[in-house]
């Protein structure tokens, strides 16, 4: 009760003085309580999604470190690299003298960085994106932490309005069953989008339906994909790679291939959980339900 009251007072205070350097406390995806004493000015942002969210909030100039697979937006590309495929360097992060670090638990990032940053007293937030809603709440959380809460609300409201328009557009239409291939492994197995992920959620929001759930393991054999007999086959990648895949034995017999309902989709829109995911959902909706006029 008291905590709720304090929270309300605090929220009121923050709302009144958006620029004042009051400490902000949030709960992150690991249920850690993270406090920044003042809006951070030197941010190390690990992974494209976190960089894109900050950039969408107009905070790209505060980013002082990225990892080597971050390719967007252009203004962050020259920033110092603090890690890459082989993992992340505590030394290199600290060398940027950050006052805030944001990571997503992938490629060892959280495992390697949370503990040292906590010990050094550098606020570090871990963000997860299991569905589209969490992408929006991550944007809000970053905005609050960085002292631009209002900007965050505006951005989220805009994105939400676009999601609502897609929802209205596909409401009542029969969802096609969909398999989306997101990767190919050397041994011939394929990675497919599962439910319980933001990409799976994006497919559902765009008016589709996952043809089968990958089960406990994300890698499936082509056979399992043939058997699931989806209405539509999506390939996250280039048209050329997609044609190469469906040109292989067996694929031409698939109903989706015969009926020419095979589409290459953008990897950056659907496999980076940031603002561009909303673009991806709009594009998917147009693929799933082409009869309705595109917005």
């Amino acid at each position, binding site marked *: 009760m008291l905590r709720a009251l304090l929270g309300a007072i605090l929220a009121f205070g923050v709302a009144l003085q958006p620029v004042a350097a009051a400490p902000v406390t949030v709960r992150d995806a690991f249920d850690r309580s993270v406090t920044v004493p003042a809006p951070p000015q030197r941010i190390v942002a690990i992974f494209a999604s976190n960089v894109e969210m900050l950039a969408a909030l107009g905070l790209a100039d505060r980013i002082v470190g990225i990892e080597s697979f971050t390719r967007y937006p252009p203004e962050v590309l020259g920033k110092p690299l603090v890690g890459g495929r082989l993992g992340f360097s505590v030394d*290199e992060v600290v060398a940027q003298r950050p006052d805030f670090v944001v990571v997503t638990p992938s490629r060892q990032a959280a*495992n390697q960085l949370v503990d*040292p940053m906590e010990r050094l007293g550098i606020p570090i937030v871990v963000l997860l994106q299991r569905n589209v809603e969490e992408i929006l709440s991550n944007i809000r959380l970053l905005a609050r932490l960085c002292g631009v809460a209002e900007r965050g609300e505006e951005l989220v409201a805009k994105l939400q309005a676009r999601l609502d328009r897609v929802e209205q557009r596909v409401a009542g239409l029969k969802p096609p069953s969909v398999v989306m291939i997101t990767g190919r492994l050397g041994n011939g197995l394929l990675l497919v989008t599962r439910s319980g992920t933001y990409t799976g959620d994006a497919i559902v929001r765009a008016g589709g339906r996952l043809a089968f759930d990958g089960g*406990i393991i994300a890698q499936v054999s082509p056979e399992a994909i043939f058997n699931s007999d989806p209405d539509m086959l999506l390939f996250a990648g280039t048209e050329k790679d997609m044609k190469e895949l469906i040109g292989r034995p067996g694929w031409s017999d698939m109903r989706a291939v015969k009926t020419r309902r095979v589409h290459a989709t953008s990897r950056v829109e659907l496999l980076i959980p940031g603002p561009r995911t909303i673009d991806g959902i709009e594009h998917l909706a147009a693929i799933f339900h082409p009869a309705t006029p595109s917005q």
Partner: protein
Amino acid sequence: MRAWPLLLLALALSIVIAACAGHDWATPSDLFRAIAGATDLRSRLLVEWRIPRVLAAALVGALLGLGGTVFQGVFRNPLAEPYLLGSAGGAALGATVALLVPLAAPQSFVLPVLAFAGAWGATMLVIGISRVSGAVDAAGMLLAGVAVAAILGALRSFLMLALSDETVSLQIVLSWVLGGVQTPSWPILGLLAVISLACLMLTMVLASRLDVLGLGETMATAFGLSVNRFIAFAVLAGSVVVAAAVAFGGLVAFVGLASPHIARWLVGPLHRPLLPASALVGAIVVTSADAIARAALPPAEIPLGLVTAVAGGPFFILLLARRLRT
């Protein structure tokens, strides 16, 4: 006995160099300032992160050196090594179960216990297989070890694929499997130091009987050693040591193999000097390898197990070649 000052000096030197090494190299005077209590970010990085990690690496190396010496002594096999005999693989499987399978007991308790159970179970299995098949020689034991390690590795991989939450737990397990010293907090480092000292004492108790066993089972029996009971006890002790090393350092290959050999060149084959010497060599090797892992490819950090495997693999091949020729 000139080897001891040399070893201690080398260890001190490797610890200082390793504490300086990183993407951002520190000087010894930086280290001194940090230890003296400077509060800037870089000094705190050194004191809270790098120095505990370097010391933990040294202790993990010492444990691996001890474990390797015990196993080589028990099996009278210069190619015996925790990593190759399946005990490290068993410990890793136990640890994977502890990390991934939801169990009722707290992880801090379950993890070392399961790591030990895995190390011990796997080693006993290897001994059992080589005994039953009548192949108690070096090659037979190694082949059994390879087979058991492969099975354990497959089980571990399956658990990782099936049970892990890709984003969180898989990465913790993966960093274990690839070998890498976790940076302990200072109290945990103290605990590791106590454990390492206890392991040294435990293995020293075995020293004279390991020497006797080295004369051959018949001879050892003639000297009044209850061979089977002693081997069972020594394997148990070795498994405790390996489990402690794996719990703090993951799967670090070949250190347990190489350290006793290097130590033998320096102090001879008797176990009383060999065990502490081997621990020192292991500490020097892992401290140096960990420094390379951290500093070689900035900004990334190479898993420690890969560094020791790349450096230690050729060493193993050399030993194998020499042994096959004799």
